[in-house]
């Protein structure tokens, strides 16, 4: 199987363990990931905050490139990129004015053909025909849990995993949601399919503090801490997620949480793709398990158990 894949900048820089584990897992599932030529930053959250046309243009350009390469869907793992692409595409479908204006900008694009060195101009209009898919949706709908199970190499039943959705996979409901925002199950279904023991916990859709970690870190520590604590209280020994910003707040900056909450000893956090790749038999080094602020290897059974306390 071959599918277009938009990694986004963060996966190439800060979140290499998300990128590497996605690549490793998909290779093991015989899925070839094709990056659209010349992809740029999706614009992160900014096109959606300002609703400015020039902010929406980059994500639409990425989608148009997928279409030019013959694709009708593009898979992402980063929850932010996913939300941006999907909302930008929704605008192209539902908002005639934005559709017209963005296409007017994109028509002016100039591209130099790599082979002939000739200028390519006068691009076709993009009408919203490429579906942005989150990898969780792609696995459920295109690969299928049945196929997935046939490729499993490791038993993960000892892992009690709490699925953390955050906001970007579910809200706003009408534009983005990959599942019912109030009682989603797609993440849990996936975890069950790869053999994890799934733990339900009430904070799975709560905000992690998002960008407050940059401007007011003390304000993002509390929500992040409450999520980790709730997962632990409900019996989880791993928290799984898909968003690099959530990961930054709840994994990378566990040191800050510890400064504010003295009893917090740390908690293992993994990208869902790391769990997937691990279940499919990938090596620990390949999926970046050593890069974590709180070492998840003991809970995965790779090294001796460390004390976990929240």
């Amino acid at each position, binding site marked *: 199987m071959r599918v277009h894949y938009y990694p986004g900048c963060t996966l190439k820089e800060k979140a290499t363990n998300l990128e590497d584990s996605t690549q490793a897992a998909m290779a093991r599932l015989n899925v070839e990931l094709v990056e659209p030529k010349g992809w740029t930053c999706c614009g992160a959250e900014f096109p959606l905050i300002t609703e400015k046309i020039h902010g929406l243009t980059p994500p639409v350009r990425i989608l148009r490139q997928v279409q030019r390469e013959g694709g009708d869907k593009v898979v992402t793992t980063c929850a932010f990129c996913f939300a941006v692409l999907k909302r930008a595409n929704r605008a192209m479908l539902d908002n005639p004015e934005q559709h017209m204006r963005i296409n007017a900008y994109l028509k002016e694009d100039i591209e130099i053909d790599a082979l002939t060195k000739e200028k390519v101009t006068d691009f076709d209009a993009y009408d919203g025909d490429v579906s942005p898919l989150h990898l969780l949706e792609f696995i459920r709908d295109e690969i299928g849990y049945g196929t997935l199970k046939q490729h499993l190499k490791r038993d993960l039943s000892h892992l009690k995993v709490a699925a953390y959705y955050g906001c970007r996979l579910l809200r706003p*409901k009408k534009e983005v949601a990959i599942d*019912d925002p*109030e*009682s989603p199950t797609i993440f849990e279904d996936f975890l069950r399919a790869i053999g994890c023991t799934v733990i339900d916990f*009430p*904070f799975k859709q709560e905000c992690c503090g998002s960008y407050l970690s940059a401007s007011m870190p003390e304000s993002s520590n509390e929500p992040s801490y409450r999520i980790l604590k*709730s997962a632990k*209280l409900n019996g989880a020994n791993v928290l799984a997620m898909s968003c690099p910003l959530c990961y930054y707040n709840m994994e990378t900056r566990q040191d800050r949480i510890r400064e504010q909450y003295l009893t917090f000893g740390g908690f293992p956090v993994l990208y869902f793709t790391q769990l997937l790749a691990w279940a499919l038999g990938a090596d620990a080094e390949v999926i970046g398990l050593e890069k974590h602020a709180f070492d998840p290897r003991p809970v995965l059974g790779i090294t001796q158990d460390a004390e976990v306390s929240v």
Partner: protein
Amino acid sequence: MMKKEKKRIGVFVCHCGVNIAGVVDVARVAEVLKEYPGVELSADYVYMCSEPGQQMVLDKIKEEKLDAVIVAACSPTLHEGTFQHAAELAGLNPHQVEIANIREQDAWVHPDRERATDKAIRIVRSMVEKAIQNEDLEPIKVGVTRKALVIGGGVAGLQSALDIAEQGYEVIVVEKEPSVGGKMIQLSETFPTLDCSQCILTPKMVEATRHPKIRLMTYSEVESISGFVGNFKVRIKKKPRFVDEDLCKLCNDCADVCPQVVPDEYNMGLSFRKAIYMPFPQAVPGTYTLDRDNCLGTLPIRCGKCKDVCDAKAIDYDMKEEIIEEEVGAVVVATGYDLYDMKALGEYGGEHYEDVVNGLEFERILSASGPTGGKVQRPSDGKEPQNVVFIQCAGSRDPEYHNSYCSKICCMYTAKHAMLYKHRVHNGNATVFYIDVRTGGKNFDEFYQRTIDEDGVLYLRGKVSKIFKEGDKLLVWGVDTLTGQKVEVEADMVVLAMAMTKADGAPALMKKLKVAVDANGWLGEAHPKLRPVESLNQGFFLAGCAHGPKDIPETVSQASAAAAKVGALFAKTELMHEPTIVPVVEELCSGCGICVSMCPYGARTLDQVQHVIEVNEVLCEGCGACAAACPAGAAQQRNQSDNQIFSMVNAILRG
């Protein structure tokens, strides 16, 4: 058809105070129309609907020997009848009266005097053209069967049945459950007087059983209905109860031996009953019912224990479903409501947490006849809850995801719930989250104030975003919009005032009855203000929550009103049906049958032999759907023919 040239037409233009005259130059309209072909007389007057105004129309018809009258005034829904009556008094056929609506369709919607006046002239002109071709019509007469059908045996249905029966007419009450009583019999105490719901309802139930004119058919459903006002044929399905009502001695021996335990509907699933059961002690009829869906099996090899122990020999496994046919003249639809499913509000956890209950469940918990005997205990572990959170508007007033409407009774019953809780758990804490508190009703606001002033219930204005469990507590997250603070309340139990919705079985039933429902599935009334208890479909009357959320007094009022309407119908020896129906021009009809599928009233059938359409004149409501659909022009509505419509269009468009 009368010859055009011969018709003498009078035009009467109404000022309606300033309603019309404020925008339209009525004098000019009257002046211009004087010159219009066929118009003999044209005049204006300040209030045409007033006594002198009507007298003027009446006199002029006589004096000028008018053959038709146009009244240019308000919408025909208001005063068409008034002027038709005046015309009749003057000896003119009422179908020679036309109303030109220059108020709602002109003066009220246009600011420009010049153009509004021009439009008024065109509207009146078109009605003159229509009137020129109008024929004299006589109403269609039909007899009346003086027996009523009431669907639903809750308080609405019982009240309607009793009031109809007291007027001397026979009534059949069809109730799908084993007992009458509806939702009201499940309530604990009622606001704002706190009288016991059962104590006030059971006398009505008993009275209905004993009334010689009332026939209660419980455990029965309406299978189909045909016919028309005054003359309905109804087929009622009587489900087998497997217990002979007359022989059953209510000893409970059958239930004692029954091995099948299922959730008890009467207690909202908070307790259990057997597969053979009596719904509640005061059930009417007082008998047991064997619930076939949950029975192990009546063959001795499967079970058959209940029959073995029944000394009265009341249990009969061979009972079969029966279809009973009845003829009735009117139908009261009183099918009640259901509560919106807690599953739809995933964020409140009603589906997962036993201690998150809906309003009716809490009624059972408070009720002396409930699973806890009226002691407030939470379902999960039977502990007395020290902190109870009540959430209003759960699924109501949320056009984005749930129901856009207000469920109307929740503010009051939540106040009652909180008050009753505080009466039983004196040191407990009751917190209510609300959007607004709506207490429109006699003594309602005083009641609500008491919950705050005397019982110390805490009201927080704001919505709850989420409920989840931490340990054995429920944590309620919300916002207090008066202080702008996020709040977290620890609760032992949460009561959701779930929205009221159409009854589960209502859509299928309403389809069978062919009665109109609104976007939310509530029954539609003929006029929102002036005909609130009648359906647009003649012969159908509305009572209770099937028509929309209501409290008990309002339900009872509407039920009595519906009964009065049935009485007025039955007081007639024959019914007059509007003659503006759509007959068939047989020479033009090809028998294609398109109009049959268009007709919402089932008035048109295809004669397979003659291959033409037959029209049931009494069923036809003259909506014109068939006339618009007929490709051959064979369906011509009386006094609304294609020719008339073309003439009207021409009169409007001409310069």
